[in-house]
């Protein structure tokens, strides 16, 4: 009655019940862990029932000649992973995480290899069984890693050389890849070794370029801009930065569902909001919550939108852009960049205090456009 399969599952079920009881007694009654263990137990009992019902897995294994199994890389890799684990405990978390990945990957490979080597008497069949199981995982992972290295190296090159040189390098590399690819495709008879050699030379070239690029560092203007903090920096007055970036709109994930779209059209401001048929003059902004507005400029002049944040300490820009000592920080307002006609930009604001706590209404205005303001109501 009890053969291999049912014995395995019966044993596992027994082990799970033991754990469940021990957990309830020693750890905690009726906690999430107990629920989880009960579920595991239920699943195992179900599997046991099925196995007993259909005899699956109960066939006795036939004697096999297992003397000739091949060498294996995986014990070594497991040890490397274990060493990374220990190193991670001492040095830095990243090694620990890396260690976990390596150990898991090596164990999985090892397990599958060991299993496949005793699958049948035919080593060729065993190898193909192993490949069938692992290739669908191995190939994409290796390809992703390889591509990642190439892309990262190439990006280091692009950041190091000047903008125009970058364009040239990009075109040259792309054409080389296209040429090589077409050649391989047109000459199927080409020797495999030749193809791989060319690919390896190309990849090594790019990686070497990347290492060199990383050594050189950012090109001057990028380095200066980074130092100036212009990616984070926003002016409510005249632009001082040489690297003012009109296109830094930050609207990628925001544009699909903002609190309101504020439009400047023919010198008039209005708020377009989902659900409201007509443009509004007043918007409700959730308190203590980042709310996003999009400002659209249909005026000919370059314009920016300014959000008043109310009496001092009553609100803060959600974005950490407002650097200390800025005049607009003292005036308690924040704003978009200047944008030309037809452009738009997002502004994220967080109002911590309700409108009733403010001395004056909270507003969205555009400097240079008189008499127009959208009132922001904060419940």
């Amino acid at each position, binding site marked *: 009655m009890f053969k291999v399969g049912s014995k395995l599952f019966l044993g596992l079920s027994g082990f799970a019940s033991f754990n469940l009881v021990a957990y309830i007694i020693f750890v905690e009654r009726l906690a999430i862990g107990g629920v989880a263990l009960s579920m595991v137990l239920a699943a195992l009992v179900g599997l046991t029932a099925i196995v007993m019902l259909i005899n699956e*897995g109960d066939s006795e294994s036939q004697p096999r000649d297992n003397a000739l199994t091949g060498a294996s890389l995986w014990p070594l890799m497991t040890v490397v992973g274990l060493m990374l684990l220990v190193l991670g405990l001492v040095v830095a978390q990243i090694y620990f995480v890396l260690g976990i990945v390596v150990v898991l990957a090596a164990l999985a490979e090892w397990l599958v290899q060991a299993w496949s080597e005793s699958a049948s008497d035919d080593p060729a069949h065993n190898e193909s069984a192993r490949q069938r199981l692992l290739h669908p995982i191995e190939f994409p992972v290796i390809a992703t890693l390889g591509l990642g290295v190439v892309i990262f190296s190439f990006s280091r090159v692009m950041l190091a050389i000047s903008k125009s040189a970058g364009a040239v390098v990009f075109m040259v590399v792309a054409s080389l890849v296209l040429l090589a690819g077409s050649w391989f495709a047109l000459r199927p008879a080409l020797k495999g070794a030749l193809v791989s050699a060319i690919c390896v030379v190309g990849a090594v070239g790019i990686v070497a370029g990347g290492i060199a690029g990383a050594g050189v560092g950012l090109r001057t203007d990028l380095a200066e801009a980074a130092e100036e903090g212009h990616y984070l920096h926003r002016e409510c007055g005249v632009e001082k930065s040489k690297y003012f970036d009109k296109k830094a709109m930050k609207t990628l994930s925001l544009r699909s569902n903002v609190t309101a779209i504020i439009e400047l059209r023919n010198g008039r401001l209005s708020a377009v909001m989902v659900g409201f048929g007509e443009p509004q003059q*007043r918007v409700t902004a*959730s308190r*203590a919550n980042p709310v996003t507005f999009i400002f659209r400029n249909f005026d000919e002049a370059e314009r920016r939108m300014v959000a008043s944040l109310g009496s001092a300490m009553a609100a803060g820009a959600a974005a950490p852009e407002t650097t200390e000592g800025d005049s607009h920080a003292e005036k308690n307002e924040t704003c978009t960049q200047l944008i030309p006609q037809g452009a738009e930009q997002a502004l*994220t604001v967080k109002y911590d205090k309700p409108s009733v706590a403010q001395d004056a209404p909270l507003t969205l205005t555009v400097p240079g456009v008189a008499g127009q303001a959208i009132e922001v109501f904060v419940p």
Partner: protein
Amino acid sequence: MMKSRRLALRALAATGAAAFLGSCATNAPQDTWQPKGPNAKMIDDLQQPVFAVAGIIGIIVAAAVGFAIWRYKDRGQPIPEQTHGKPALEITLTVIPALILAVVGVFTFRVIFDLARTDDTQLVINVTGQQWWWEYDYPVQNEWGITQPIISSGQLVMPVGTKVLLRETSRDVIHSYWIPALNGKRDAVPGRVHTLRLEADAPGIYAGQCTEFCGLSHANMRMEAVALSNEDFAKWVAGQQAAYQPPAEGTLAKEGESVFLNQCVRCHQVEGLKRADGTLAIAAPDENVWSGAAPNLTKLMSRNTFAGAMFNLLRDACRDDVWRADSAEFGAKYLAGVDETCLNVNDLRAWLRNAPEVKPMYANPALLADTNGKYRGMPNLGLSESDIDKLVAYLLTLK
């Protein structure tokens, strides 16, 4: 062998029967198969035929698998020869499911797009989720008599037969708004505004529940949508906008007001409430609560539930009276709100005595390092019983 097999079959049958009987519960206010409005009806009309088709296919597949398991189970026979590739069969077996899915897909997409419409909205309500309750605010909409914003929590009040659009967002983690009788779920995500259509056919209360795991009291983050006739909704709006009435001098409620000013106003706003020096009392939940908000209590007794609709403000008998009222009487009964005779004093007192004890919350003052000393939920304020008497008397005036 026979014995274990019979046992397994019996267990299977028992589980099946339990599941089947469970689906027949009579009092199931959150039953998705009982749509009470056009949006939910749309989903149901799609779901029924798809379920039938999928069910039949499911049974066929399960039966085929069962047959194969049984018919070819291990009886010691040799492993059959393995073959590869049978294009005609493979193509057929790919094309048929693809066709079925394509047909289902056409209808599904139509419903998805219909449910996403926002151009026919008649009333907009902002909904903000936070650990572990929902806040509603009604932006100014003069056509509904809403001339100043209304802020409420727990119970969403809406006019019947009206295309209501919820603009959802969240103050802390992702929550999900779901009133099964009125529409499907929609996640409330911090920093984003997601819309959800609601429309109820008849006056009544429709129960719902947060359906995105959001922490300790996720299971206690409930909500109710209350549909009122247009006239009753107008009355509700007027009631919500009525000015604050301070309790009369010398009453217990008046003493409660000063306890409230001392203990509660740092988190809870009561619109129009003034301090002893005549200035408006402005709550600062952003300084005390992690998500930056606490329920607005201005009209607390106009709702039937509190603390994320986990507790009833009405005693069971009074609550049943409202829930079971027929459409014609429902509005008047709901608008009556909560008075002293109907107040569920026990739960309210327990809440004031020690809120984290009755609703799990992160409110242990010693464990607030992760949240800069701010609470997630309402803390135990260590109030005396006499303070609680006063507060209950005061809260009863907030209507």
